[in-house]
């Protein structure tokens, strides 16, 4: 299965600052997913990347997949307290149907945004 390494493990930034979270795989990524988890809650799907060089944005969050498809980054511009939480990357672990995959996840990056 894919081994996903996330860095940093935790991050404290001042409100308004930009930040980047990285996700690196030991194997080629054919589907890379970013999720956000508020403490004690379920995971919220943010974005899915599939093609090398692909970039997607949602509000102030941008995710990119590198050309070699082994590394993805999540960038938050002008961070706000509402961005606080745990960010997890996930990748296809096991094919369970024609196009359905169970995902393997990194251990997450805990983000705290201070006033």
């Amino acid at each position, binding site marked *: 299965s894919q081994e996903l390494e996330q860095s940093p493990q935790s991050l404290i930034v001042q409100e308004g600052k930009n930040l980047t979270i990285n996700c690196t795989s030991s194997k080629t990524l054919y589907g890379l*997913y970013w999720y956000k988890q508020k403490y004690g809650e379920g995971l919220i799907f943010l974005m899915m990347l599939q093609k090398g060089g692909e970039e997607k944005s949602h509000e102030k969050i941008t995710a990119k997949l590198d050309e070699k498809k082994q590394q993805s980054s999540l960038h938050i511009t002008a961070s706000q307290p509402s961005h606080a939480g745990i960010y997890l990357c996930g990748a296809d672990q096991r094919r*369970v149907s024609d196009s359905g995959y169970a995902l393997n996840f990194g251990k997450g990056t805990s983000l705290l945004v201070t006033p």
Partner: protein
Amino acid sequence: SQTIHQWPATLVQPVGSPLSLECTVEGTSNPNLYWYRQAAGRGLQLLFYSVGIGQISSEVPQNLSASRPQDRQFILSSKKLLLSDSGFYLCAWSVSRTGRNSPLHFGNGTRLTVT
């Protein structure tokens, strides 16, 4: 729109007692269903997945079992809980369709503490 319900939200059970966690999905048919466990410092671990009624695949040998008695119902069970079963249990679903990967959508989780 599709929704996923998981209950209970929290549970405290003594060692040796049985367990039943339930998950239901609304607004879609024939979803792929998943049970994950999230433990501190260990990330998310895939426990079971199902592509149809009565079809269960186990990823990790353990004290737990899963069943899918109806298309949109997924149950996680144990006959006798162990201390090591404590954790945050997450149910998820995805659409199975040809031609593209589908993200997983998670419930709000169940916090299980075995005492």
